[in-house]
């Protein structure tokens, strides 16, 4: 490997890593607030990319039906629950937020899909379409068992991924798509070529990290989320409703997934099930941060991007093996550093 190739691979790795950072941050966000290890995170990103690809080719994205199905199921499940607990009068307000609202981008999409739109509008539409999926899936799958052990929530999350992957295959088909790059420009910096696309990815990632920081540091909702992450019971006693913080966390995470999907789309072909591996690689980053620390998570995710870039140059068939095997030393290190202050785990 020459220095030049090493540099190109490095740039590539940082660009991919920057996307993993967004996903990993979303994963840590959801986990710390709701204790859900949200395995289907990558699926949401992949669905955004597929939506964008369909819009760019002037077709109606399958996401439309996916969102309609999920929103419909959520409405049915929640209505049944409300009726059973004698709160049927709350159904209209629930329907307004959890069914009508998500259906707006769906209808918009049906109206506009075949027309020629500027790329920015397509991107926004794609993100808007996927945005409600996070909170909807939260309502549908996790809310009914919000107090269950982490283990049960995790199993539900993995099952949910396979449900989404199946739906993805039904609605998007087995073909892979690549979206048009956000920009074609190429610059030469310090002896290596850097595409504007790669720079945009890093920029977007930094901007969203900044926004996230501002949100957590300076907004009331952001502080409520942090409080819930530190102590769920305590936050509840202070009048912070875990239902609301959970939904906000999932909404934010959905947004991060959407942005990640838009950014990854031009870099690699996305299939209906690409999200699983994509999300799990970000997970490796999140695990480096112990599913707690945002800065270490970001560094970890960046490192995973670099590792993937060099590993695929070395032997592309084994790159997944390399990345996931890397978990072993990471876990060993975490386990040694954590052994001294083990905490009591929850009981069933």
């Amino acid at each position, binding site marked *: 490997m020459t220095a030049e190739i090493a540099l190109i691979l490095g740039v590539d790795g940082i660009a991919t890593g920057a996307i993993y950072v967004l996903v990993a941050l979303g994963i840590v966000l959801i986990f710390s607030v709701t204790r859900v*290890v949200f*395995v289907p995170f990558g699926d949401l990103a992949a669905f955004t990319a597929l939506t964008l690809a369909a819009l760019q080719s002037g077709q109606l994205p399958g996401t439309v039906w996916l969102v309609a199905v999920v929103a419909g199921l959520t409405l049915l499940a929640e209505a049944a629950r409300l009726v059973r607990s004698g709160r049927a009068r709350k159904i209209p307000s629930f329907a307004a937020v959890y069914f009508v609202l998500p259906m707006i981008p769906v209808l918009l999409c049906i109206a506009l899909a075949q027309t020629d739109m500027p790329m920015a509008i397509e991107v926004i539409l794609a993100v808007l379409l996927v945005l409600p999926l996070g909170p909807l899936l939260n309502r549908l*799958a996790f809310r*009914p*068992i919000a107090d*269950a*052990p*982490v*283990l*049960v929530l*995790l*199993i*539900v999350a*993995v*099952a*949910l991924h*396979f*449900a989404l*992957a*199946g*739906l993805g*295959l*039904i609605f998007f088909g087995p073909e892979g798509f690549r979206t048009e790059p956000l920009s074609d420009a190429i610059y030469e910096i310090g002896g290596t070529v850097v595409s504007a696309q790669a720079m945009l990815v890093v920029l977007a990632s930094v901007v969203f990290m900044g926004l996230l920081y501002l949100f957590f540091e300076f907004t009331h909702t952001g502080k409520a989320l942090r409080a819930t992450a530190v102590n769920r019971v305590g936050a509840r006693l202070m009048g912070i409703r875990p239902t609301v913080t959970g939904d906000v966390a999932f909404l934010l995470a959905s947004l991060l997934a959407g942005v990640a999907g838009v950014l990854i789309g031009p870099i690699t072909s996305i299939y209906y099930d690409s999200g*699983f*591996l994509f999300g*799990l690689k970000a*997970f*490796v980053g999140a*695990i480096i941060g112990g*599913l707690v620390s945002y800065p270490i998570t970001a560094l970890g995710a960046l490192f995973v991007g670099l590792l993937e870039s060099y590993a695929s140059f070395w032997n592309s*068939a*084994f790159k*997944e*093996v390399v990345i*996931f*095997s890397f*978990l*072993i030393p990471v*876990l*060993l290190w*975490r*386990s040694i550093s*954590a*052994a001294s202050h*083990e*905490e*009591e*785990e*929850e*009981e*069933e």
Partner: protein
Amino acid sequence: MSNSSLIARLPLIAGLLVLVLLPSFAGTFAVTLMNYIGIYALVALGLVLLTGIGGLTSFGQASFVGVGAYSTAWLTTAYGLSPWAGLVLALVLTGVAALVIGTVTLRLGGHFLPLSTIAWGISIYFLFGNMDSLGRFGGLSGVPPITLGPISFATNGAMYVLIWITVCISALLCWNLLRSREGRAIRSLRGGRIMSESFGINTFRIRLYTFVIAALLAGLSGWLYAHMSRFVSPAPFDVRASIDYLFMAISGGSGYLAGAIVGSAFTSVAKNFLQDVLPSITSNAGPFETVIFSVIFILLLQYARTGIVASVQRWLPRRALPMPAEAEEMPRRVMPEPGSLMLEVDKVVKRFGGLVAVNEVDFTVRTGEIVALIGPNGAGKSTMFNLISGVLGPTEGRVRFLGQDITSYGPRRIASLGLSRTFQHVKLRPTMSLIDNVMLGAYRRTSSGFLAGALRLNQAEERRARHEAMRQLRRCGLGDNPHELAGNLALGQQRILEIARALAADPALLLLDEPAAGLRRLEKKALADLLRSLRGEGVTILLVEHDMEFVMDLVDRIVVMEFGSKLTEGLPADVRADKRVQDAYLGGTA
């Protein structure tokens, strides 16, 4: 055998009858289906131990099956070795893989094991699919059948016998294991680490071994699979398949060994049904099947986490178990001389960041005494308790127990020196019987391991331990119904059960954490009577208590703490008369 025992055993007898008679009336299709059910059931059996009983989980069981299948396929096709050599390699490789994964993840929080098993599952899938020597994604074909002397297991009918004998033996070994010393330790895991370690159980070791056992069962299943289908490829060993195994264990009833077999039968039959029906409804049969199964799984976890076997068992009478038989007494510790120094807390300080929770406290407990550590809320009593029992380590100062410096010891090591404790918030295993709970207390007085438990080589020791547990139950007045489930007791009785369990460890010092908290008047009286009678038998007790009235007539000496420091210490009457104590308790400003 009584009538109710017979009815309770009916499902087992019926199941065995079906197994024996099935080949004589069922067609090839049913036999093949049963073979798959048996192969899946082995994996699910491991998950029942791991997930349902041990409270851990793995998304990598299919990859352990894969390692087992590929080991034997590779050894028998590339080197022409016997399938029995393949079995050895299959078990060694799955065991070592599980040992490594478990060692690096099991010290971390509960979700790190499943997450890393997903990663392991993906890695191994791509490894199978990309290695030339393993035939890449095309797989390995021409795997020979298993032979045993002149018998060849080439036909499905012959494999049926081999598979189901393996399943029955494995289930029997697991059944024995769960009823042994280490099995009770596995069943205690879900009660939390602090509880189990207080009996001297090394929870890390128990979890690791349980994970390895589950992996070995999966490897065994893979070996059978490879020689039944005579072909292996990566597809059946991906993470999807691992989820299917988990589905089997949980739908069947992950708390029951029978759940593994019922669950894999239910899943296989349902899959077959869907695969027959779906193609006539939709052209997307494959993904629809996935979606349907995933949705059922989520609903199952939301509404029926206990599974099929649990809902059937609710309708069956509980088997009436006999009272434990008399057995030889277990050896008991020689207690130190009455009045000699037992526990010495020496200028102990505990800081949490800037907060000083315990500040230079010292006191002693002598053999044969009952000493109470009292103080108002927030005085630092519970922190002090944790410092003595080893749950926390002090910032400064020393703790000595029976002449040994135990300052830096963990709870397990301290427990093994002869200090037994109870918990302020009762920590019992509600789904285990009274006697099983108390036998947990005797864990470190017994020694038989996993293998001895599975093979029932532990029976003499078990009888002694059961007898000892029964003796402690009687001593505490709970001897009437030892097979009752602990969760059915009232709070007062649960606290007494905790004391019986602590006594089963034959402690030199009994450490009680707010034993009277939440008890009704009569329950308090019963507790006080029990503690008095224990003192009469020479047991030394240190109790941390909030309730002044409860300790006044009971204890020999009282140590009073306030705001982290020792306020005073002395005889109950003197402490009661102490103005400072009255102020501390009544919040007097004078």
